[in-house]
């Protein structure tokens, strides 16, 4: 076994091209256990069925007890001449006690009536007994009976429905060396990955009971669960089957996780692309804006030149201002001189005129004493040209005209000077005005260009915005998780290798096995009256292809009666083939409910029961119970001691 395990792991390592230790770590983390060899099949046989309670609400109200002891291998039957007389309930109660959980087919009133139920069964050669007190909640125990008649040993006790189910599942799964079937269930939601579901004893035990629903070939789990194939492989007892199931389940989980990641990644890529597009559009806009902004240098150069011109103009303005000040000062000075000259001239002219007036006015008296001036003094004055009053010389100055000329010359010169400085002042004023005008114009130009400088700040803003956008674009375009899938790729690869290595091992044995089962199945079906069935091919997924009357068909297309016979034939074929090869898992117990209640003709039933009768003699470990309406077909083939019957509309219990 250790060698088989080693070979298996090495085979995986070779396929995955990875080290053994990595393989082992994946096996451990995914709970995949090698199952190269299975334990030998165990045989289950019912020995005693007992249940009791109190009926109410029916015609035969009151306490009751059903007791069916001394059961053994072979064909057994529960018969009534009318329906609803308790035969199905016996089967459901057995099922309840074996599974630890009642099926939905157990009628509610029956469940309520029953107070105690006990099932004694033999597992290989060891007898066990499960006892349950079922009033209200369930409690009870599972015991192993000593072969020598000693005290039974209690294997487990239970005091609730769930404990009961747990105890029975645990017991039978161990006893039959079965492993839970792990199955992958996909999620309906895109954002989660689904989950692994473990199916246990409830599913397995279904292969021992054939109710009235023939939808699936094996067991009683709905088709949708996809469990038929697994159940079949498990019952066939193929090695590696549970390993393969676990590996496939893990593979699917990882794959789904990877798919989800990939989906998310695709969404991420889309979001990223739209972000890249948005940034690119923004960037294009900004670059367009930038191209429309005038260049920085041109305006700065213009401004520098203007500033230089402005400085020069201001210097000229200062110079001209100073000159104007000088011209004004000169004007004032010259104007003052001019006015002075005019005033002097005026004064001189006035004085000359006044002097002329006084010259012809001779003094008549002394202004000091008022005495008249005598004729003698007047004559004397004319002779001596000395004043008749004071005696001073009275000769008239001849300078007056000369002075007049001089003063007139001064006025003229001053006027000329004034005209000149006036012209100079006007010139300076005009020049200053011109310079001031150009200063103002330069100032306007500088202001205008400085205003353009405002757009330089905008230019700087644009350049900055573009740099930021370029950075964002680069960041948005880069792949943030380039090696993200490496780990998963590795695990997916290893799981693929595990699945493939395991599948190889399963296939090697399964193909031959299925062929054998298919052949046996045809023989049994023919013995159950399906004489026109010439060929059957059971697939690994429990699909069954048929050739009936020379026409290819399949299980799902045949009649209900045929389905029943094929179901039974399949189980029998599996039991037989497994028995021969020593690998089967079916415990050899089969309970078939009310075959006649469906579209199964009495002939069909007759053929089925007669076939079962024969087969039960061939298969030493086979125990089969048939529940049905009393019919010749059954009574002929089932010995009276193997029958529990109720006649005249009576009840089985």
């Amino acid at each position: 076994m250790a060698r088989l395990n080693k070979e298996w792991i090495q085979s995986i390592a070779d396929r995955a091209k990875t080290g053994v230790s990595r393989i082992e770590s994946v096996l451990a983390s995914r709970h995949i256990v090698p199952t190269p060899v299975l334990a030998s099949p165990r045989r289950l046989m019912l020995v005693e069925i007992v249940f009791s309670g109190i009926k109410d609400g029916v015609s035969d109200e009151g306490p009751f007890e059903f007791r069916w002891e001394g059961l053994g291998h072979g064909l057994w039957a529960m018969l009534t001449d009318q329906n609803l007389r308790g035969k199905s309930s016996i089967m459901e109660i057995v099922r309840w006690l074996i599974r630890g959980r009642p099926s939905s087919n157990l009628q509610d009133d029956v469940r309520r009536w029953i107070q105690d139920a006990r099932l004694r069964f033999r597992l290989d050669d060891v007898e066990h007994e499960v006892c349950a007190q079922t009033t209200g909640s369930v409690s009870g125990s599972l015991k192993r009976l000593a072969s020598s008649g000693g005290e039974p040993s209690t294997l487990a006790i239970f005091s609730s429905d769930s404990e009961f189910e747990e105890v029975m599942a645990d017991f039978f799964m161990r006893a039959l060396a079965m492993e839970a079937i792990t199955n992958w269930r996909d999620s309906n939601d895109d954002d989660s990955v689904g989950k692994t579901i473990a199916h246990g004893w409830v599913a397995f035990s279904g292969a021992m009971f054939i109710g009235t629903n023939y939808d699936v070939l094996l067991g009683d789990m709905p088709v949708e669960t996809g469990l038929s194939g697994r159940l079949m492989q498990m019952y066939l007892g193929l090695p590696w089957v549970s390993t393969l199931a676990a590996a496939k389940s893990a593979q699917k989980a990882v794959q789904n996780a990877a798919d989800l990641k990939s989906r998310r990644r695709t969404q991420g890529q889309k979001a990223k692309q739209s972000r890249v597009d948005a940034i690119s559009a923004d960037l294009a806009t900004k670059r367009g804006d930038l191209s429309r902004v005038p260049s920085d240098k041109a305006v700065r150069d213009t401004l520098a030149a203007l500033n230089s011109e402005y400085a020069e103009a201001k210097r000229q303005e200062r110079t001209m201002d100073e000159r104007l000040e000088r011209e004004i000062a000169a004007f004032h000075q010259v104007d003052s001189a001019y006015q002075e000259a005019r005033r002097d001239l005026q004064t001189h002219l006035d004085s000359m005129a006044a002097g002329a007036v006084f010259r012809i006015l001779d003094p008549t008296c002394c202004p000091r004493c008022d005495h008249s001036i005598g004729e003698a003094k007047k004559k004397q004055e004319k002779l001596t040209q000395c004043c008749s009053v004071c005696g001073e010389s009275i000769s008239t100055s001849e300078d007056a005209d000369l002075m007049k000329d001089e003063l007139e010359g001064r006025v003229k010169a001053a006027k000329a000077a004034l005209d000149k400085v006036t012209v100079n002042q006007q010139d300076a004023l005009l020049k200053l005005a011109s310079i001031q005008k150009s200063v103002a114009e330069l100032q306007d130009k500088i202001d205008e260009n400085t205003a353009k400088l405002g757009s330089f700040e905008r230019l700087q803003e644009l350049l900055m915005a573009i740099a930021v956008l370029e950075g964002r674009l680069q960041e948005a375009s880069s792949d943030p998780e380039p090696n993200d899938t490496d780990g998963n790729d590795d695990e997916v690869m290893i799981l693929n290798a595990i699945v493939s290595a395991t599948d190889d091992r399963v296939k090697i044995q399964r193909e031959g096995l299925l062929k054998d089962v298919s052949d046996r199945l045809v023989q049994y079906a023919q013995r159950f009256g399906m004489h026109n069935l010439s060929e059957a091919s059971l697939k690994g997924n429990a699909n069954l292809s048929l050739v009936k009357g020379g026409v290819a068909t399949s299980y799902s297309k045949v009649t209900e009666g045929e389905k029943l016979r094929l179901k039974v034939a399949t189980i029998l074929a599996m039991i037989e083939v497994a028995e021969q090869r020593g690998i089967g898992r079916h415990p050899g117990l089969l309970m078939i409910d009310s075959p006649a209640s469906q579209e199964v003709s009495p002939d069909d039933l007759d053929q089925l029961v007669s076939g079962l009768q024969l087969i039960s003699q061939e298969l030493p470990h086979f125990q089969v119970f048939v529940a049905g309406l009393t019919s010749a077909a059954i009574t002929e083939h089932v010995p009276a001691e193997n029958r529990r019957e109720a006649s005249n509309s009576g009840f089985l219990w």
Partner: protein
Amino acid sequence: MFKNLCSQEQEEALITKRTPHRDALRILFVFNAGGTPCAVPAEPEIVSIFKGETRLWAFDFWMRNPDYLAAELLDMFEQNGDNVYLQAAESIFENDEPDLRRVPMIRYLFGAYDRMDDSLSLLRSRDLIRITGLKSNTKVRETDFLLTAKGKEVCTSAVTQEPILKWYADRAELVARVAGDRGGTALKHQQYERATYAETKYGGVIPPITSDVHQRLKQLVETASEDTNGQIE
């Protein structure tokens, strides 16, 4: 134009310059224009009397300071709205009189003052005027100036002989109109009041007020022309 360009030195030069005949004639025109006709039985040559030296100084101040006279003319125009005064003031400025005709005076006590002795002597020696007055004991209470017929005749003949002197005759008439019947003390107070505003600048010399008056004149002319336009409309 009228910037009172004279420096203090120039002002002093103007004051000290000797122009006795011109000054004497100016005074004579003042006596002629500002005197009151009178008859003195003992002195039949006398035609009019000009009372008081203070009044003489007041007259002479206006004769020598055309800007101050113009200010009085503007006051009178504002008082009675007679355009003659406004035009007279305008004429003063048009002829640059504040510059050309200005003869600065010293402020003494509470009015303009100048020594008149030389001028009066010139007039007296030709018997153009006679000087009299009211005396109480030894103190002269008032000096009056009597214009002789000869003096009055000179006023007429001088203008004929020397037309340039007509300005003095006309100006004396204008000053007399401005002064009216008022006595010397009243006139002195009026002049002093106006002169005080500008006084601080020039110390002893009564400063010109040309610019202020010219400015006021221009405003009044504008207002007057607006009024006229308003009436036409």
